[in-house]
């Protein structure tokens, strides 16, 4: 695909995205995303899970435009709470608190919020250009993939997600195994035999992923919020001067460009959540700065760089999703599930077979970035007011939304029971250090993993060596092993250090 062809496809994408109904979905998505980013009570994954049932009756293009809007909108919104009340709306906005909040305390909240919005806009645009060029290239390269390559790739993604898990890797592996087991519930599509259904009709079609996801990511958050009181004082001073000064621009433009590009490429790697590159980019900027002592005390480049980075990383993560059909984080797992529900089959042929959806989405992201810039600057006072909604009431509302979201899909109360079960599982898991991300990724990919494994074994007449003799497969398997070895070596090294430090005492 040459540059001209890409440009023509993009023009086609704009003709799709600029249709009034799609423009409306884009607006709703980025507005909801910003709101979710602002509110610490709910994350973008839970918001997408809650919105998903409402998209079943929409056209897939409009629906994916809306859900993607929630995703990148949340990255914008997350900065507002980080700067104003030192409480990050999203994990990817944690770094923004380092310099954003000190700026607010110095009376420069407006400049920090403004630069965060501009930085996000510029980096968001850079990364969309990257997505536009890289995704089709990778998609073409993956056309030759068959069952063994897919199996190896999915196993690598899953291992990477467990490696990146914040807590213990062994617990993440346990969650991934549990997710895989859960995905086998229901009728086996090859032998048509019922598995783990125990004569329950509601289990015959498998476990519905909506209550599982909303429970694990939505209700779990609410249960946790009921245990801890939301703290943080809202800045009462008036926010003025949203437009950064010339000096602010001079200080920030290079960090924005550097961190934006870095975030995009980091986003492509499986398992990297947008929060990881933001920490690294902050460190890089501090090292490159002529005045590193200003970092942590209100340096505007400490806000601009990481904000640019987290927005760019979002687009980067979408490359493996659209070109290979492999989600590399929880949010993209949700988008993959949505695509499957709408009857799409994400994979190497996806971009060619669904140009309206892919290029419409790309174009909508340009439009969404402009909308976010327009929304963020004038609506900041409104977001601040929303933060004053009592947290208790907010959490009660989220419970109601969770129940409505799950019940309205099939009108079955059993789904709501499943929601509560997974809400409790998620809550207990969070307390005991078991993360939901590897579980949900294995659960969503489970069926595809099973089919590709069984097909591979049929192809090889029962020999597992098929995963080592095919070059691409072997690379994926080698990378998977490397990840596991890295994790084991890392753990051993930490243990040895701990023993040494104990001996010193």
């Amino acid at each position, binding site marked *: 695909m040459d540059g001209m062809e890409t440009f023509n496809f993009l023009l086609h994408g704009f003709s799709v995205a600029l249709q009034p109904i799609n423009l409306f979905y884009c607006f709703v998505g980025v507005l909801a995303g910003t709101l979710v980013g602002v509110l610490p009570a709910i994350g973008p994954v839970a918001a997408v899970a809650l919105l998903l049932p*409402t998209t079943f009756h929409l056209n897939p293009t409009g629906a994916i435009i809306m859900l993607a809007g929630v995703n990148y909108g949340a990255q914008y919104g997350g900065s507002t709470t980080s700067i104003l009340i030192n409480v990050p709306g999203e994990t990817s906005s944690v770094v923004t608190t380092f310099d954003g909040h000190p700026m607010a305390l110095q009376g420069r909240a407006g400049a920090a919020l403004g630069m965060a919005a501009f930085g996000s806009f510029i980096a968001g645009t850079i990364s969309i250009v990257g997505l536009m060029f890289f995704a089709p290239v990778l998609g073409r390269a993956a056309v030759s993939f068959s069952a063994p390559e897919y199996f190896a790739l999915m196993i690598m993604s899953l291992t990477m997600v467990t490696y990146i898990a914040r807590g*213990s890797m*062994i*617990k993440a*592996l*346990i969650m991934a*195994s*549990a997710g*895989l*087991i859960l995905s*086998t519930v229901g009728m*086996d599509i*090859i*032998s048509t*035999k019922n*598995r*783990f259904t125990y004569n329950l009709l509601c289990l015959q079609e498998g476990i519905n992923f909506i209550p599982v996801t909303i429970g694990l990511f939505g*209700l779990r958050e*609410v*249960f*946790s919020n*009921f*245990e*801890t*009181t939301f703290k943080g004082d809202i800045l009462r001073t008036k926010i003025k001067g949203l437009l950064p000064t010339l000096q602010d621009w001079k200080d920030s433009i290079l960090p924005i460009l550097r961190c934006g590009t870095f975030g995009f490429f980091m986003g492509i790697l499986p398992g990297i959540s947008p929060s990881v590159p933001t920490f690294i980019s902050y460190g890089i900027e501090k090292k490159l700065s002529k005045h590193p002592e200003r970092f942590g005390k209100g340096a505007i480049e400490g806000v601009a760089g990481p904000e640019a980075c987290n927005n760019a990383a979002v687009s980067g993560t979408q490359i493996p999703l659209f070109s290979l059909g492999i989600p590399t984080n929880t949010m993209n797992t949700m988008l993959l599930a949505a695509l499957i529900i709408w009857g799409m089959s994400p994979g190497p042929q996806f971009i060619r077979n669904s140009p309206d959806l892919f290029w419409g989405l790309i174009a909508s992201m340009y439009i969404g970035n402009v909308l976010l810039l327009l929304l963020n600057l004038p609506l900041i006072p409104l977001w601040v007011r929303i933060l004053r909604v009592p947290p*208790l*009431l907010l*959490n*009660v*509302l989220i*419970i*109601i939304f969770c*129940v*409505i979201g799950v*019940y*309205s899909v099939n*009108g079955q*109360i059993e789904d*709501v*029971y499943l929601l*509560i079960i997974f*809400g*409790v599982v998620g*809550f207990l898991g969070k307390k*005991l250090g*078991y993360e939901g991300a590897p579980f949900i990724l294995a659960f969503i990919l*489970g069926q595809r*993993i*099973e089919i590709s*494994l*069984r097909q591979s*074994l*049929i192809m090889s*007449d*029962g020999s597992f060596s098929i995963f080592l003799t095919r070059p691409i497969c072997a690379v994926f398997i080698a990378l998977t092993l490397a990840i596991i070895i890295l994790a084991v070596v890392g753990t051993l090294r930490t243990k040895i250090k701990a023993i040494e430090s104990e001996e010193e005492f």
Partner: protein
Amino acid sequence: MKQDKVTSLFWLLFGIFIVGESVKLGLGKIQEPGPGFVSFLGGICLSLFSVVLMVKSFLVKPRIKDKEARNETGKRYGFFFALIGVLIYVFIFEWLGFLISTFLLVTFLLKCFEQKRWWKILLTAGVVSLSAFVIFDILLKAELPAGILRGLSVLSLK
């Protein structure tokens, strides 16, 4: 670390159960795997990982941080109240209908967690449940249960 011992035991038993059930489902031949094949592999992995976790939990001494964490009780009752509220809500959801059950849930949670006057709580619960009903049931046609209010003219509008 005591928690890890308990959870790893739970996972181990669950893993063994899955392995047993998968064998019953049929593993098939390696050339043509059966319906229980993948869940069998999942069960084996789960059992192995839980054994690793169990061994780890016995080897690693509890750190001061863990002891501190145990002492930190926090607002533990908060989760139980929320859970009781949600469970009752779901039990009465189809019987009393969305409007009444939501009103009761909001009243229950606000009363449990906030020391506000009754009239304020009832007013908030009324506004929240009615707004949610109008938005989701009437405007978005989410097909929520009418319950004992079925037959009322407002509810039959949808």
